[in-house]
C-alpha cells in the first residue's frame, strides 16, 4: 500500500517537488504585484492606453473609407492585442528576476536547491496570470471603445498566440542573461528590447513596408511570421500554417539559444563572483 507523504517533511526529487517550488516562486511574485499597486500599471493601464491609441488611430485612418478603416482597425487592434502576449510574457519573467535583484533576494535564492528552470517556470507561471489580465483587459477595451471583437477571428489565433508566448519567454531569458553579465546597468534592456522587436516584427504592417536594409533582420524574427499569419486571418483568409510553422520553428530555435545563453551567463556569473553585486 502506498503511504501518504508527511507534508511537514521535504518531498523526494521529482515533478511534484518542482511544481511546489514553481508555485512558491509564483506566489511570491503575486504578493509583490498586489502589494505595490504601481506595478499593476503594466497589466492594467498600459494595455488600455495601447488599445485607446491604436484604436483611435484606426478610427482616424478609417474616416471616410469604411472598408479600409475596418481593415486598419483589424490590423492595428489585433496586432496590438497579440503584441501584448509577447510583451507581457517577456516583461513578467524579466521583471520577476529583476525583482530579486532589487530586493537583494538573489543570494538567498541562489543558495537554495531551486533549479534555474524551476525558478524561471515559477515566474513564467505567474506571468501567465499577468498576461491573462493584461490581454483580457485589452480585449474588453477593444470591444467597448471600438466594437472590435478579437474572438471573431476564431481559434486560428491560438497557435499564433502560442508562438508569440514562446518568443516572449525566449527574449526574457536573453534579458536575464545580459543582466547577469552586465549587472543592474543593463536593466533598461528589459523594456527597451521590445521597442526594437515591435517595428521589425511587422506587427501592424507587412515587412515590405520596412526599409530594404532592415528586412533581413525582420525575416529572421519568428514574430514576423506569426503577425503575417495574423493579418491573413484578419483579412478573412484561412490560417497560413506555413507561416505558423516557420514562426514556431524559429521560436523553438530562439528558445534553445536563449536557454544556452542564460546558462552560459549564469556560469560566468558564478565564476566571476558577480553575486556580490547584489549582496
Amino acid at each position, binding site marked *: 500500500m502506498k503511504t501518504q507523504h508527511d507534508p511537514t517533511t521535504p518531498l523526494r526529487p521529482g515533478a511534484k517537488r518542482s511544481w511546489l517550488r514553481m508555485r512558491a516562486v509564483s506566489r511570491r511574485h503575486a504578493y509583490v504585484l498586489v502589494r505595490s499597486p504601481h506595478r499593476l500599471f503594466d497589466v492594467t493601464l498600459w494595455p488600455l492606453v495601447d488599445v485607446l491609441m491604436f484604436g483611435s488611430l484606426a478610427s482616424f485612418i478609417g474616416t471616410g473609407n469604411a472598408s479600409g478603416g475596418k481593415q486598419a482597425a483589424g490590423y492595428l487592434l489585433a496586432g496590438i492585442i497579440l503584441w501584448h502576449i509577447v510583451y507581457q510574457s517577456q516583461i513578467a519573467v524579466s521583471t520577476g528576476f529583476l525583482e530579486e535583484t532589487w530586493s537583494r*533576494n538573489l543570494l538567498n535564492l541562489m543558495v537554495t536547491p531551486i533549479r534555474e528552470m524551476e525558478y524561471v517556470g515559477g515566474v513564467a507561471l505567474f506571468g501567465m496570470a499577468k498576461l491573462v489580465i493584461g490581454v483580457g483587459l485589452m480585449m474588453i477595451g477593444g470591444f467597448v471603445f471600438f466594437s472590435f471583437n478579437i474572438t471573431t477571428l476564431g481559434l486560428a489565433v491560438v497557435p499564433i498566440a502560442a508562438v508569440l508566448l514562446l518568443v516572449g519567454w525566449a527574449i526574457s531569458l536573453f534579458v536575464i542573461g545580459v543582466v547577469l553579465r552586465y549587472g543592474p546597468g543593463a536593466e533598461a534592456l528589459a523594456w527597451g528590447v521590445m521597442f526594437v522587436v515591435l517595428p521589425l516584427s511587422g506587427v501592424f504592417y507587412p515587412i515590405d513596408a520596412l526599409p530594404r536594409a532592415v528586412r533581413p533582420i525582420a525575416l529572421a524574427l519568428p514574430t514576423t511570421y506569426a503577425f503575417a499569419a495574423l493579418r491573413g486571418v484578419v483579412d478573412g483568409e484561412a490560417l497560413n500554417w506555413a507561416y505558423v510553422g516557420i514562426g514556431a520553428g524559429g521560436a523553438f530555435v530562439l528558445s534553445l539559444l536563449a536557454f544556452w545563453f542564460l546558462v552560459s551567463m549564469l556560469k560566468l556569473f558564478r565564476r566571476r563572483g558577480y553575486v556580490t553585486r547584489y549582496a
Partner: protein
Amino acid sequence: MDTVLSARGLVKEFKRAIAVDGVDIEVKAGERVALLGPNGAGKTTTLLMILGAISPDKGEVEICGVPQRRNRSHAAEHVGFAAGYLPLAGEMKVREYLMMFGQIYGIPDPSKAIAEGLERFRIQHLSEAKGTQLSSGQRTLVGIVRAVLHKPRLLVLDEPTASLDPDVAGRVRGGILELCADNGTALLVTSHDMLEVERLCERVLFLSAGRIVADGAPTEIAERFGREDLEGVFLHLADENYQPSDPPTSQHTDHIL
C-alpha cells in the same frame, strides 16, 4: 563522526588579487566552527564557494558527500544560509516569506517548522509583519529561521550578529546553540566578534590573505600565537605587516598551518 562539509584546495582569483588560495576545510556533524580573519582575508568568498554561489577556480566542495560542482541542487538541500547583511523581501509578510522558502526546500506544508523556528528565536509576534517593518536584528532572526526550516545538516552564517544589540545577539547565539544541540546541525560561522566566537564555537579557522593560518580550539590558538585571547590573535593577523608564512610566536606549531 560524519563529515558534512569537505572543501579541498579551494582557489579563487579575481581580477586584481587572489581572494582564496588553497583553502581546505572539513566540518564534522554537529561541529561548531568559526571562520575568522581580517577584512579581505577571503572569508565571504570561501563561504560563497561552499554555498555554490561562486564557483572555485580550483578545488572541490562536497556537502554530505554530494559534490557541489556536479549536483548543486542536491548539495544545497543539506545547507542553510543566513547573513546579517541580507534584507527580507519587502512586500512579503514574515510568514509568507518563510512559507516560500520552506516550499523551495521541498516542504509542502512548512507551517509547523515556521512556528517552531519563530518560537525558538522568540519572534512569534513578527509572523504578520512585513519585511520593511522589521529592525535589522529582527531581519537577522527571521533570516536564521528561514535557514533552518528544512533542518539542514550544515548551517552557514555570515556575520549573523553584526550591528545587533547585546540582547538580540544573545538570543541569536542561544537559539543557534539550542538548534545545533537538538538537531546535530554543524555550524560554520564568520564573525568579527571574538567574544561571540569563543562562546559559540569549539573550533576556529583563521584566514589571512586567502590562506588558513591556524586551526584549533579558541584557547589553543590564542596560546599558540602567544596572545591572551582570540582578539589578540585577530589583531596580530590583521597587522598589515603580517605574512601568512610568519611563524606564530609560540613554541607550539603542530596545529598551525
